[in-house]
């Protein structure tokens, strides 16, 4: 058996494939979950930073600015390491589930939390960009019709912001999927880590007793293909929404 055949043999082992595709599922679920929570946090942070500028509310604005700038200007990996040490995993997560050990579920929680913190700061700036693009007249028109600040936001401003930022926000989903690979630094849960894990044991799977350079190409090629398919589909969506928005 040649080295290349051996490498492809790895991908024909059902257990390995299931292991890898579970990793794909984790990558997608972690990223989707992180983006949803990050949008909620980002929205609050963007509103605070933009509109809490006077009186006693100013403190909220300053805190939001601090939050955004700190997480935006430091690496994700630093926050993963910090969450690893300082954040306790909640008790209900510390058991076996989803095919992970109780230690791994704890790591998954901490890693995802770091990802949420990091992405929420970027998303807050995206939302703020959208808010700043809305002309003042829209607010004034809303108030003149007797709407309160909450209804001006939800009925008039936010729908327009949403229209404008959807392409950028979808682009950030792509970034989040890519950034989720940083979790590979602390745990073997998602695609990147599992690919590396399989590669490290390739000598047992390829029937040749040692790791060849073809194993590197085949295993990472597999991961490249998966990431590319997911992200490329999303980037087509980005382009389509960007065109229809105009």
């Amino acid at each position, binding site marked *: 058996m040649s080295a290349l055949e051996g490498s492809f043999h790895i991908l024909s082992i059902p257990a390995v494939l299931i292991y890898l595709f579970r990793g794909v599922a984790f990558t997608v679920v972690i990223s989707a979950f992180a983006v949803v929570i990050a949008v909620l946090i980002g929205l609050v942070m963007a509103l605070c930073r933009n509109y809490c500028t006077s009186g006693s509310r100013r403190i909220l604005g300053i805190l939001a600015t601090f939050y955004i700038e700190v997480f935006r200007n430091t690496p994700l990996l*630093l926050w993963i390491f910090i969450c690893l040490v300082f954040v306790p995993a909640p008790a209900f997560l510390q058991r076996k589930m989803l095919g992970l050990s109780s230690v791994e579920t704890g790591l998954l929680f901490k890693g995802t939390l770091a990802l949420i913190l990091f992405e929420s700061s970027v998303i807050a700036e995206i939302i703020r960009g959208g808010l700043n693009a809305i002309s003042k007249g829209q607010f004034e028109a809303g108030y003149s019709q007797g709407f309160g600040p909450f209804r001006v936001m939800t009925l008039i401003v936010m729908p327009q912001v949403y229209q404008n930022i959807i392409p950028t926000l979808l682009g950030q989903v792509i970034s989040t999927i890519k950034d989720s690979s940083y979790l590979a630094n602390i745990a073997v849960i998602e695609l990147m880590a599992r690919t590396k894990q399989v590669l490290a044991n390739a000598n047992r799977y390829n029937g040749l007793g040692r790791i060849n350079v073809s194993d590197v190409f085949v295993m990472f090629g597999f991961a490249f293909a998966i*990431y590319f398919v997911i992200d490329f589909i999303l980037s087509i969506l980005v382009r389509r929404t960007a065109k229809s928005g105009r």
Partner: protein
Amino acid sequence: MSGLFSAYSWSKVWGARAGFLMGLGNTVLTAVFGILLALVLGLVFGLMGTSNKRILKAVNRVYVEFIQNTPVLLQLCFIYYALAFSGHSIGIIPAGITALGIYTGAYMSEVFRAGIQSIPKGQFEAARSQGFTYFEEMYYIILPQTMKIILPPMVNQVVNLIKNTSCLYIIGGSDLISITYSFVTGEKTGGAYGPAYILCGAVFFVICYPLSKLASTWELRLKRREAATVKTAAAKAA
């Protein structure tokens, strides 16, 4: 947050200052050469993206789409392990420079492409009519005009690259983050989590915050100036 305010753990960090400085040096080294590589690749592929030749355009698209849609961590691991297992290992930092340069280069090339495409067609035609060659036209006429537009997104990419130097950890690098982590988990030095992480975060913040601030004020000023020129043009027309 144990040990955050204890003089003992801060003195531990101070005692390991040589290691932290070495880590910072490695991070800066990787970032500087990564940025240079990214600029070169970005310019070359950005020019390809604006050319009339189909094949060059196609090369640009393949490069940009492939690199932008896969994680930098995976690209780094691929470069590092492919070279290592084929017996051509180039070392951790050169591998990091290559991977980060190629990754950020894809973003830079989109920045250059957008900048060049924002220049009115008349500028290209005028340059051609004066007998400039392609490279003279780009160097003297087009690229200087794109600079003010492309600087803000370019600086943002530089910030991203600096943050992404942390990916060296996965191949066992000795950049600032990796050094910090091995410091806090090390047998002799372990425990001083708070001070070490604060130090590491502060260093990154001090480098990245002024850059991102620069990029955003630059962009804002550009937008204001644009709005002002539109206004005066409208006033003149009326």
